[in-house]
């Protein structure tokens, strides 16, 4: 089986007629589920974010929050957020359910199941969803993918190594774009079919080379990874990043988007920078951003010509400043 056959309507491999009826093992021949959920009407599917996410604590060893907060945005969409007392990176990880597949985007910064068992959390979500919808959880294929090639997004992959009916990305650029069947990264936009629920995926390099943007056509959430999130967007490569921003703008010009969502939050509601590595963010800003904020950031970015740290009002654009990762200063300085 070609690695691309699990992608729907991919022109490059659309040689198998959709209506072909066969008993072969190919993915297209799987029997349709009974009473499928309709992911294509009454869009966008409503949903909500929590007023407050778990956000660490003053004393970490006294933190009693769960390792990950599981928030059901709606009946078919969960968003996971790691506890800051388990890792300062505390990334967010959406979990999208379709009729035949589940997509986990990003994982949290954990490696071993005894540190915290991401796989068990995901399995619990899948069992919950399946029981609510009268499905067999074992029948659902789990796809584990990540927004980009950084450890706080892929560290847990090996927890899924022996999980049945599961596919996950490899840890190289080649394997990542191959996983989505891309041959023309970053411009090519592919459509992933979760079983009635379509995810649009295209390249979004700039923070790192190997990064994607993900758009869920059901909730109409645009997931922008680490290239655009509520905090310090570390831009390693300005030109590709700016081009990726332009692709996002072109996308929101032509597609309805309810929320723009990044992987982290590193800023307070008042625009205060939470420095890199902080493990308690009691007043943190929401993870979701608006299309307007994305457009404003793009307009702001047009004016940037030099490396440096720029605050757009929504995010910090850290243009090629890995040597100066935060804007804060030594508070005890005197003359």
């Amino acid at each position: 089986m070609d690695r691309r056959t699990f992608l729907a309507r991919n022109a490059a491999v659309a040689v198998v007629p959709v209506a072909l009826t066969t008993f072969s093992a190919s993915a297209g021949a799987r029997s349709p589920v009974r009473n499928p959920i309709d992911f294509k009407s009454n869009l966008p599917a409503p949903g909500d974010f929590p007023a407050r996410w778990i956000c660490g604590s003053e004393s970490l060893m006294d933190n009693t929050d769960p390792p990950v907060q599981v928030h059901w945005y709606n009946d078919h969409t969960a968003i996971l957020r790691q506890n800051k007392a388990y890792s300062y990176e505390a990334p967010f990880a959406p979990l999208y359910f379709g009729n035949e597949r589940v997509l986990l985007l990003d994982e949290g910064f954990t490696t071993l199941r005894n540190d915290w068992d991401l796989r068990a959390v995901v399995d619990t979500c899948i069992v919950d969803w399946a029981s609510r919808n009268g499905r067999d959880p074992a029948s659902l294929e789990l796809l584990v993918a990540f927004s980009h090639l950084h450890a706080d997004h892929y560290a847990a992959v090996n927890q899924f190594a022996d999980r049945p009916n599961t596919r996950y990305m490899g840890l190289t650029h080649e394997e990542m774009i191959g996983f989505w069947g891309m041959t023309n990264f970053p411009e090519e936009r592919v459509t992933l079919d979760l079983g009635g629920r379509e995810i649009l995926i295209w390249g979004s390099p700039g923070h790192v080379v190997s990064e994607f943007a993900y758009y869920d056509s059901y909730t109409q959430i645009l997931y922008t990874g680490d290239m655009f999130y509520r905090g310090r967007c570390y831009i390693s490569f300005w030109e590709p990043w700016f081009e990726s921003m332009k692709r996002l703008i072109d996308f929101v010009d032509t597609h309805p988007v309810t929320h723009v969502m990044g992987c982290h939050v590193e800023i307070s509601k008042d625009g205060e920078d939470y420095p890199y590595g902080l493990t308690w963010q009691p007043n943190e800003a929401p993870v979701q951003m608006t299309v307007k904020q994305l457009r404003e950031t793009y307009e702001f970015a047009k004016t940037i010509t030099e490396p440096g740290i720029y605050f757009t009002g929504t995010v910090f654009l850290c243009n090629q400043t890995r040597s100066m990762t935060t804007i804060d200063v030594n508070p005890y300085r005197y003359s």
Partner: protein
Amino acid sequence: MPQQPPTDRTQPQEAGNARPSATSRTAPNGDLSHGYNPEGARHTDSAVPLHRTEPVVHDYRSEGPAPGRIAFRWAHGSNVAAKNRDPRVQVIQYNEDTFVLRQNVCVHWEAPFTYLLFGNAGALLIDAGATANPRYYPLRETVDALITRWEQARGRTSVPLTVALTSGEDVAQNQGVVQFADRARTTIVPTKLAAMQQHYGFSGNWPSRTARIDLGGRVIDVIPAPGTHRDGVCFYDPYCKMLFTGDLLFPGRINISNDGDFVSSLERLQGFAASHPIKWVMGGHIDMMFVPGKYYPRFATYKPYERVLEMAPTLIDDAVAYAREIRGNEKMLIGSDFVLFNGVSPDQRTKVWPEGVPDIDPPRPF
């Protein structure tokens, strides 16, 4: 008879423990050439008498450093901070009259060290930790228990306590002071600069003169040392021959707040070290790893490759050289045992690597 090796008064050989580090002893089974009855034995109180009729008076006079060891590893946090179950306050008895306390890394990432010294007439607590809430960081409870045990061993009661800070403004060292606010027989050195200077009697001669804290036979020197904090001081213990330097000099990321003061203070310490024997320089934190020049970033809560706390006094000379190099330059400078940040973000990074220092990457923990 083998020839005696030349003895260096600033780095004395300890009986059976030729090197001070617990993990790198060169004579783990003892060293016969030091003899069976070294001078240091007179510093240890005997437990032989069953009942004491009067308080033990300890003789804190000593030629070399009082015997003592840090024979254990510091708790260094855990990969998942929320699951850490190490003591909130780790106590290591350096010797019967000297204790080193460390705050749990997973209670506060600064994980400051606090020192408790006893003399015949009182105890001195140097620094007070980074967390005020005693539920998270029961410093007072721990210190009270240490004092009680010491009092019982010495046949004393009501030993007065002085709480003094290496910097009153440093929130990584002053937060625990509030826990001692209502403690009986306790003197808290004021944390505000002017009041602190007045308390020690520095008025007019700060920072050129030194002051003293007399614990009864053990007289601690207080040496003004602004540079990382405008109100910074160092303490010298002539019994253990230790210099307590707080944020001014420690194996970690040293944020310079005034580079002129920083150089002068280190030069003052250099001068002090020339006239006073120093076994170890003891700082307030550890950020460095045990490979040279590598360090943990701010907010790290798991530091398995941490360097040891104690610093050889020759490091003062290194620090002076580095401080002079960085004076007037807004940049960071990596040394083997410390990293200096002058006028830059505490998260500044650099590609400049010190010449002649091996560049070793320790393995990445989980």
